[in-house]
Structures are given as structure tokens and as C-alpha cells.
């Protein structure tokens, strides 16, 4: 390929990348019809853009990097909180007093910010594409390593639901009403989503549920939020919850299959 005053040179790239106005494009095409050298050069540029560079592999983000990024964001959040703490102490005292008054005024049933509601919101946010996963993989062990590398402050396990036709999609280190949570997601039959979260806590702290089930000596608290079914159970110091818009009994059966009495 050569640049020459009688040939088009960089204008060929403008044609290739559709950066010429209609009049100039017509001139260039007219030139090309009678110039094999420019045609050859144009095809070479096209080959580089459309063939050679499209062969480059897309490398997956290492799980350790995704976990490092999340951990670094956590550190930044904590530093921000510490800086603002003194400044806000006085204001917080005033607000706390106001909150006490408000608590006395509001109905005991207005519990809009409960953990089940937060889990349901997370499910909807994931389904709607506004809650991204940090790591995308169907490898159960890779997601577990990701949580460990990210400093998950409790022992947790990622379920293999392949036998139940649920494929792992990935996970994120999450926060559930301010507490660390390991969140991982499956795609099931009929493209149904299943979001699992694990966090340190007690089942007894949950509000009254729509249903309570017992299976193999384990208590399951079942909540319904619109079309979303939530099933909570306790494993040692960790609370596990499955959330899905699949059939409610199917979600409960998945919980039965994977819950372990600790």
C-alpha cells in the first residue's frame, strides 16, 4: 500500500468508516472504479478492521480482579463514612430524636424497608438490568473463590443447581440493607431468574412471613412480593434466601433440596 498524490490515501479510510458526505463519496467511488491500486488498498484496510482485529480473543475478567475492584470501592465507602462522621454527629442526634417521634406516630405495619422487601427489590433490579453482576461465570468454584477473594466475612457456599436445570450466571459482593451479602444468580427453565443471597443474621429477626414450612428439621420462612417468591432459612450464623418469579412451590422445593441443617 502506498500513498500517492494520484491515489486516495486516507480518504479511503473515510469511505470505509462512512465519514464522507454524499458528493465526496460519489467522487471516490468513481475513482475506485478505475483504480485497482486504491481498490486493493481499500480492501486491505477493510480486512484489518473487519477480519484481523475481529479475531482477537475477548479475555474474561479474572475473578480476583472483580473482587479487588469491589473491595476497593468498599474501602472508599468506609473512608467517606469516617470523614463525614464527625460532621454529621450533631445533625444525627437531632435526626434521631425526630425519628423517635416518627416511630411513635407511624403504624407498626408500615415495614416497607424490611429485609424481604430489600431482597425482592434486588431481584427486580437484577431482572430489570439495573443490578449488575461483578463476575459472570457458570463455574461454581470460581464464584466461591470470587467471594473469598473479595473478603466475604462469613463462610458461604454457592449451590450447584444443574440437576434442577438452573444454570449459574455469576455473582456479586452485595449489601443488603447495609450488611455484606453474597449474591449469586441462576437462569432456569423458561428464562426464569433465581437470585440467591447469603448474609450474617438471624431468621428470628425477619418480620412475620406469609407461610412457614418445616423440612428435614429446617424452618423455611416464605414471603410473596407480587410475583416474586422469597424463601429464607438459617445455616449456622448465615441466613440464606432464594428469590424468584418462578412457580412458588418450585422455589420452595429448590430451597428444600439445597438447605443443610447446621
Amino acid at each position, binding site marked *: 500500500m*502506498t500513498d500517492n498524490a494520484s491515489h486516495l490515501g486516507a480518504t479511503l479510510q473515510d469511505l470505509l468508516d462512512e465519514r464522507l458526505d454524499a458528493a465526496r463519496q460519489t467522487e471516490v467511488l468513481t475513482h475506485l472504479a478505475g483504480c485497482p491500486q486504491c481498490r486493493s488498498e481499500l480492501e486491505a484496510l477493510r480486512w484489518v478492521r473487519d477480519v*484481523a482485529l475481529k479475531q*482477537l480473543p475477548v*479475555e474474561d475478567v479474572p475473578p*480476583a480482579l472483580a473482587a479487588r*475492584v469491589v473491595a476497593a470501592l468498599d474501602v472508599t*465507602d468506609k473512608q467517606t463514612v469516617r470523614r463525614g462522621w464527625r460532621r454529621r454527629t450533631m445533625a444525627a442526634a437531632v435526626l434521631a430524636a425526630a425519628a423517635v417521634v416518627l416511630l411513635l406516630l407511624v403504624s407498626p405495619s408500615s415495614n416497607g424497608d424490611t429485609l424481604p422487601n430489600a431482597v425482592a427489590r434486588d431481584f427486580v433490579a437484577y431482572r430489570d438490568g439495573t443490578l*449488575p453482576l*461483578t463476575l459472570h461465570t457458570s463455574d461454581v468454584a470460581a464464584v466461591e473463590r470470587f467471594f473469598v477473594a473479595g473478603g466475604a466475612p462469613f463462610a458461604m457456599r454457592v449451590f450447584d443447581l444443574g440437576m434442577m436445570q438452573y444454570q449459574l450466571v455469576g455473582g456479586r459482593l452485595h449489601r443488603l440493607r447495609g450488611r455484606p451479602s453474597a449474591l449469586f444468580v441462576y437462569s432456569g427453565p423458561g428464562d426464569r431468574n433465581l437470585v440467591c443471597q447469603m448474609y450474617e443474621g438471624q431468621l428470628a429477626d425477619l418480620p412475620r412471613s406469609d407461610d412457614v414450612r418445616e423440612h428435614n428439621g429446617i424452618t423455611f420462612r416464605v414471603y410473596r412480593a407480587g410475583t416474586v417468591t422469597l424463601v429464607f432459612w438459617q445455616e449456622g450464623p448465615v441466613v440464606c434466601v432464594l428469590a424468584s418469579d418462578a412457580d412458588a412451590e418450585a422455589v420452595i422445593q429448590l430451597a428444600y433440596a439445597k438447605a443443610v441443617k447446621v
Partner: protein
Amino acid sequence: MSDPDERRRQFESIALPLMQGLYNTSLRLTADGDEAADIVQETFLRAYRTFDNFRPGTNARAWLFTILYSVFANRYHEAKRRPRMEAVEELEAPAGPESDIALVAAWGSRWNPEVERALRRLPEDFRTPLLLIDVEGLSYEEAAAVLGCAVGTVGSRLFRGRKLLYAMLQEYAHQAGYGKHSAPDP
């Protein structure tokens, strides 16, 4: 965004899906997995700290790539650890197979060495527009904003980068079947 949780969630929903493209570009700029990861982490941290200045609905890709390139440039240019530059005239000579070893180490097994090797030999000024425009799909204008130069400069660097890459890959292209029936190059 006064609610920290909401701020964090918004940032993650906007920025984290772009991590793969950022990581791949960083890997091809540095040819070093650890360096690439460090640059990506620094990019996300800087972006998060300045997220309040980001206007929702504007171009998050261009914003993050601008930060990534700035982090890369600071590391390599100020510390004078810029990747080795070859004279442009030398680039048409075929590269020795020994350079494949480092590339395999960086990229693993899912990789075709010819294009990657040629790309790596390109001077950074020509390689970066190729990565941003041809690989990551940024527009000329977005790439110009990322690189802090004029759109015309991006166009001319892209043109030279494509021509050099073709010169390095011409034999490979013909072996792969390209150009057998087209007019020969002069």
C-alpha cells in the same frame, strides 16, 4: 445522590458492565496481566471518587476509557516505562517466534498469535486508536476525547495503524485466503 448505597448501586450498574472491555484494552496496552489489572482497579477507584461529576445519560464508556488511558499514560510515560518502541520501518519485518512465549503467558491458550503479535509491535500512538475504535467500537470523536487530541489526529493515527498492521500481516492474510483473487499490491 445523597444516599451512599444508591450512589454505589448507580455506579456499579453503569461502570461494572464495562470492566471486560477496559480489562482487554488494558491488557493490550500493557501486555502484562498484573499491570492491566492494577490499571483497571485504579480506573474504577478514580471513577468512583469522581462519580458525582458524572452526568447520567452521558457516555460512560468514553468517560471510563478516558480515565483508563490517563492511568496508563501516567504509569508508562511519567515513569519512563513506556513499552519498547520500534522504528516504523522495522515493523514490516516478520517478528521472531520467541515473542509468542510472552504473549501465550499473557493470554492463555485461546489465542491466535499472528494478529496479537502484530498489534503488540505497533507503536502505542497507532495501537491505541485501533483498540478504541476497531476493537472497542468507540467513535472517532470518543477516541479523540479519550486520547486528548483532535479528531483528525485520531483519523491519521488510525490510518497509519491499519496500514502498518496490514503490512505486518500481509503474508498471514494471503495464507488465510485473503487477496488471492484481488488485484496485487504494487
